[in-house]
Every structure is written in C-alpha cells, then in structure tokens.
C-alpha cells in the first residue's frame, strides 16, 4: 500500500478513473430476465472491447453461481460480479443500470437473494494496484442519494458523469482526512 498521498493521487490520475471507467461500458435501461442475462451482456461488452478473454463469461457465471455478489445498501441494491485474473486482459469496470430489479444471490450467504438494480462487473488484474480505485467505487455506494441518482441516468454519458463526479468527491474527501 502506498502511504504517500502524492503517490495515491498520481496513481488515481494515470491508471485510475480514466482507464477503468468507459462510457461505452456503461449500459442504461438494461432489460434482463435474470442475473445470467445481465452477466452475459456485460461480459460480452468487456470481451468485445478487448478487456477480457473469451473464457471470462463462463468463469464469471460459474463464480456468481457459487459465490454470489449481490449487496444490500441503504438505498439501491447492487452486485459486483468478478472472477479470477487469468480471464482478464486489462482492468475495467462495466456497468449495467437495470430497467427492472433482477434477483441476485446475496454475497456471503447460501440462499438469501437481493433485488439488484445496478451491476458493476469488475475485470481486475492486480487487486493491489486497483484497490484504491475499487475502494472509492464502493465508497460511492455510501454517499446518500448517489445510487438513486445513478439509477435515474437516462443515458450512458449522464451515468458516466455521475460516476466521475462521485469518485472525485470521494477522492477529495480522502485528501481532507
């Protein structure tokens, strides 16, 4: 872990938001009947854009079945599907804002479910390097009103801007500490 705040900052600007979040990997109004459809759609986006191997799709489906990633938050439930790094080429986050809630298994449970409205599919290569960014992404879930705002985005560009704004807000809040 970098202890020097300047290191963290430069890492954020070079390999952070700008390289991990992409407008074309943010889908809004996604119609899906089940979690498998959502994961297939997002994994296909990552594959087509060159971020993951073809094997990523099957791997992420298997892992979600075995170790679900649905999370209840205070406002809008989310899911964070991801899988082993051997299926990953480059780090990225693909986002699906769902037109209707889709049932996911709840992380850390055998049989609980959660009605998920926003899915963040993580393609992670080196958790040590991406942890600052992931930690900020997760922090945005805790900003009151942020997930409802993101859910309401009418297009990818708006959703992208909401995410950038929230991440920047978190980064600035960290600097004040």
């Amino acid at each position: 872990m970098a202890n020097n705040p300047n290191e963290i900052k430069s890492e954020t600007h070079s390999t952070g938001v700008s390289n991990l979040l992409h407008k074309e990997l943010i889908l809004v109004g996604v119609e899906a009947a089940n979690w498998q459809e959502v994961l297939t759609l997002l994994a296909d986006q990552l594959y087509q854009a060159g971020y993951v191997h073809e094997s990523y799709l099957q791997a992420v489906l298997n892992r979600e079945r075995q170790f679900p990633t649905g999370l209840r938050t205070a406002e809008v439930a989310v899911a964070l599907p991801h899988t082993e790094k051997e299926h990953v080429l480059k780090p990225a986050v693909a986002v699906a804002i769902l037109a209707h809630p889709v049932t996911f298994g709840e992380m850390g449970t055998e049989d609980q479910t959660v009605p998920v409205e926003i899915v963040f599919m993580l393609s992670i290569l080196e958790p040590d390097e991406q942890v600052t960014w992931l930690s900020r992404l997760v922090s945005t879930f805790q900003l009151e009103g942020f997930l409802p705002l993101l859910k309401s985005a009418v297009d990818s560009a708006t959703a992208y801007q909401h995410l950038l704004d929230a991440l920047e807000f978190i980064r600035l809040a960290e600097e004040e500490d």
Partner: protein
Amino acid sequence: MAHKVILVSCVSGMATAETTAAKIRKIAAERKWDVSVKVAEFRKLKEAVPGCDVLVQIAPSDPTDYGIPKISGVPFLTGFELDKTIQALDEIINAEPSTKPVESE
C-alpha cells in the same frame, strides 16, 4: 493496548477482501487502533488464522469456528449498518489481551 491483527477473507482474496482491508486500514488510522490488517483467500484461511485476533469474512457463507471472533465484512462494502460493525470491531480491538471475545450486543 496490545497490537491486534485483523484478518480479512473473501473467496479469492482479491477484489472484495482487498477493498474491505483498505477500508479497515483507513478506519483504523482514524481511530488510532494498534492493528495490522492481513488478507487471505478462503482456501488458505485455516493456515492464515494463527496469530490473528479477529476474522472479517465477506464470502463465502462459512459456518466454521476458527477460534477467533468472526464478523461480516459486507457492511464495509455497502455502508449498510456499518456503524454497528465498526463498534463490534472496536470492542474486539480494545479488549484486554487475555480476554477471549466478545459480547456482541
């Protein structure tokens, strides 16, 4: 206060555990806890537990008793009921060295 070791575990020791560990390190710094935070993947949890004082587990669902207090790390990801979780961790961190855990409320 004796130094305590917090062990964070998820399925692969990747995204979720590393993220949770980062959150805990930040909270620990704010609260001046004398702790170190380690990450382990689920398959290697048994080997990782010795020397640790508390296990923060995110997934999978796991009824195993590792002989140290265990709390869910999910609130560090969601913020949902995070205060309670921090409070529980605080009580473990600040417990006297000889005491085993830990009345949860």
